[in-house]
């Protein structure tokens, strides 16, 4: 056999061998998923409403999220922010329209994002783009009862639970990753989850909510709101 033929023959053999190995390789690279339920203890009882828990799988390579194509909206009606919790990927914009017939002044003193939108009236809106991940407490400088939270996540592998507490995160490459469950009024859960190729890992989380959450905050200049506020 000529050297060229020998080489081609060898290559062909290797190719066949490679083909024989493809299914395993593909399986090894196939993403897995994590699903489960969140339960929330409040005192001794299970809380029925398990919504608004943010579940994140961290440390996944190439998981930087794309910003939302359209801004999220936190509406101001009846001196209340709606919704009170908003979760957005980093780089996303949130609109704060004022639909009350009184002026509002939305601000935040959180480290991840400090902003002051100033006074604006009904029918107008102002926006903030969140470039850093973290939890941002949003308040109104006039109405102390107005409070909301914006959670800015730096991964695309996140989900927010509904009332039943169920969650599912897809498209995660195999591996062992930190998993975090965050709630507004209670402890943070941090654990490890092993994601297997092409399989769904069941991962249930139990959280404990503060029975008496506190939210003492001041006006944007650090002074108290006043006697009845």
């Amino acid at each position: 056999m000529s050297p060229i033929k020998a080489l081609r023959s060898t290559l062909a053999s290797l190719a066949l061998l490679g083909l024989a190995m493809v299914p395993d390789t593909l399986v090894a690279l196939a993403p897995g998923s994590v699903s489960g339920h969140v339960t929330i203890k409040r005192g001794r009882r299970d809380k029925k409403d398990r919504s608004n828990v943010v579940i994140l799988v961290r440390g996944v390579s190439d998981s930087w999220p794309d910003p939302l194509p359209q801004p999220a909206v936190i509406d101001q009606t009846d001196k209340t922010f709606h919704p009170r919790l908003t979760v957005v990927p980093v780089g996303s914009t949130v609109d704060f329209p004022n639909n009350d017939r009184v002026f509002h002044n939305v601000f935040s003193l959180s480290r991840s994002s400090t902003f002051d939108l100033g006074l604006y009236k009904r029918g107008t809106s102002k926006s903030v783009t969140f470039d850093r991940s973290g939890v941002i407490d949003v308040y109104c400088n006039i109405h102390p009862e107005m409070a909301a939270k914006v959670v800015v996540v730096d991964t695309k592998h996140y989900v927010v639970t509904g009332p039943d507490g169920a969650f599912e995160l897809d498209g995660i490459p195999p591996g062992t990753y930190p998993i975090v469950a965050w709630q507004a009024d209670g402890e943070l859960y941090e654990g490890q989850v092993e994601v297997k190729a092409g399989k769904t890992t069941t991962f249930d989380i139990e959280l404990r909510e503060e029975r008496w959450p506190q939210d003492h905050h001041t006006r944007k200049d650090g002074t108290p709101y006043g006697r009845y506020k």
Partner: protein
Amino acid sequence: MTSSWLLAAAAVYGPAADDVNSAGEAPELGPPQTEAPPVVPALGSDPPEPSQEQLDRFEARLEELAASNERLREDNERLREDNERLRETGERLDERVGSLEREQQATQRRVDGLLPLSSRLGGYLDVGAFWAAGNGSGVRPDTGHVVFPQYDGVLPDSWVLMGDPLSTQVNSRGDPADTGESLAVTFDPVDSRGKSSFIANAINLDLTSSVGKHLFIEGMVDLMPRNRNVANPDGLFLGDFIDVKLAYIDYIVPTRRFELDLYAGKIDPVFGYEYRIQESPDRISVTPSLACRYTCGRPLGFKARAKFLANRALVLAASLTNGSSFQEGFGFANEIDSNHFKTVAGRLSYRFDVGAGLELGASGQFGAQDLQPADDVYQWQYGVDLHLDVRGVEFASELVIGRVDGATAPGEEACGSAPCLDFKAAYGLLGYRALNWLMPYVRVDWRDALHQSGASFVYVSKLMRVTPGVRFELGTHLAIKAEYTINRELGPIPQFANDVLSTSAVAKF
């Protein structure tokens, strides 16, 4: 210079580029197509001598490959250097960011350390104009004992007063346009005598301070530009004066299960709802309701206010004070107590999650009567209140019922030693924020009271008021209010001219 083994290898394994067909396969080496003799090398044996043409081609090819290799090496070196530079830049940026973060934290610590006390000086200026019908007073004497003959022979007719001395209020403080012939309410800071007038209602200064996280201090005064009659020996015309409205310390108890505030000093009362909005910028209307005299006074003492449940909807407040929640100037309130029995007051309220809130409250108050020395002469009142704020509609309503027992010494007229008062009062105020800057409103209030002081006087009050008004808000610092109060006497009391037009421009700072 090319080694012979390399040339041989190139001849055997490395077909020239032009020998590669379109499929990318090297052609089989077969018999020579030209003059070149067949060369079939055998591995392990010496390679045959290549022709000069082959050698030239190999030489050119090798030089080409060497040049390409050199370029690649240079590119690789450049990329490596770029990568190194980027890495160094990244490290420098990381260090810089870390340094800035540390610097910011240190600065924040310094600022926090320098400013454990954060203070704010606020307040407002309230100016306006008013006109009150008649002589500006809300009372008239029962001349000739025509309406209330039962007092004939008991009191002179000019001491039997019909109406309400505070029904002609012209500003948020509750100052009447004139006290007229009133005998109990004699402090006459406006003294308009039925004439229209501009008025600087108050210059309000409000100093609030937080000392740390748990201590809050507030002092509030009104500077009052008023008439001064130096010839008046009664001192009823004080001239410009200062009214200290609040002076208290609030300790915010660091509890977890509920919020608890403890107050000491000259504090807000705990009774009803209106006391919370009695400052001019907070009050929708220009003037207070007829019930405010019973609920808006600011006594001296202690107060505790606790908020319960997760949303802090349940509020319990209680106070122990020198006097009641009657307003100063009404004749039943004093700051320094004149007896040992203090006044106990409490309010329980719940806020339902309707719109911006639907709050229902119930209040009660009991203590020794103010401005008299006995501990066993009592004064009490109770009431309910409601406040709703939804979709621009604001509704507040309150009912208060009470009694001041008074005292009568043997042989003297009823309530001769201490005045007596039986009262009921209520109001409902409905406002609609039609636009950011426009809020029309209407208030209806009612009062039924009998105020008696031995042989000194008796007031018979039974009236209803309707007060339509409008409030303009120009931004958050300036509000202009205008309202017209229609006073209507009820029962046997004849109508008399005491309607009031009042306006107010409030600039808040």
